């Protein structure tokens, strides 16, 4: 699995993001003769010691959008709220059907639960670890452990009800 760093863990992440943009633009600069301010160049050199050997893939942290985490277990361990994980695949019809519903639920229950989607084709080891078979499979994690699990598509109301039932028994 590719290793990349979460936004919250290392402060230099901002410089990583800037670095990535700077280094990708440096390709442009060679053709369009742009000169970069010295401090950006210096940042690029500094973060090489911190990041993984492969180019770090970091996307700006946006609510309910794609992010790359170094470790799924870290995500679960460091979450302040229960986590709803959607195991999906690109060409799974019901999974795509659930995408806007998950967005809506994630916004509605923003303070109660964190919604995470895992592409089982990109991360088969995580899917294997939790014995995923049918897609979509939803697992609600509390305190880093699977608490509730259900398969198949459902509408927003049913999903919210299911989540709230699971959260009600929270200590």
């Amino acid at each position: 699995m590719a290793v990349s760093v979460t936004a919250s863990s290392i402060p230099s992440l901002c410089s990583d993001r800037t670095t990535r943009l700077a280094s990708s633009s440096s390709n442009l600069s060679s053709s369009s003769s742009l000169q970069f301010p010295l401090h950006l160049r210096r940042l690029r050199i500094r973060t090489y010691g911190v990041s993984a050997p492969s180019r770090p893939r970091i996307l700006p942290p946006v609510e309910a959008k794609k992010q790359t985490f170094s470790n799924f277990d870290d995500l679960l361990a460091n979450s302040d709220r229960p986590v709803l994980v959607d195991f999906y695949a690109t060409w799974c019809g019901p999974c795509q059907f659930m995408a806007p519903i998950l967005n809506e639920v994630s916004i509605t229950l923003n303070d109660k639960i964190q919604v995470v989607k895992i592409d089982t084709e990109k991360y088969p080891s995580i899917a294997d670890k939790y014995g995923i078979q049918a897609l979509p499979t939803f697992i609600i994690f509390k305190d880093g452990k699977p608490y509730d699990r259900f398969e198949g598509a459902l509408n927003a109301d049913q999903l919210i009800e299911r989540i709230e039932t699971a959260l009600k028994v929270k200590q």
Partner: protein
Amino acid sequence: MTLQLQAPSFGATISSLPSPLTRSTLRFVIRAQVEPTEKSVEIMRKFSEQYARKSGTYFCVDKGVTSVVIKGLADHKDSLGAPLCPCRHYDDKPAEAGQGFWNCPCVPMRERKECHCMLFLTPENDFAGQDQTITLEEIRESTANI
């Protein structure tokens, strides 16, 4: 899967560039998308229509779901030689394709008309629509943004 290179704004330095290179044209988009072949999509589309008729089932009210599944079947047909169910996670896809239980129409569908992909829906299903047909254009439109 989409890769995008986007140039950040540099403000003053841009004005020194020749005029055709405005900020908007400095955006390079490299799109690397996994798409099934048109031929396979057409084959699976025809199969889906025919099997829905034969089994007395209907497509989903949301044709987007139907389109995605048809493309998923086509994708597996391209990569594995058989239309393995796209709505499952497998340890070993080629082995499963060879074994056949989950090749569309899968055993649960053939025996109990159970299609968790929501491709073939019995009339009493909440999500079942009225159609047993779908055009290539509908498939293309519904999956344009995937």
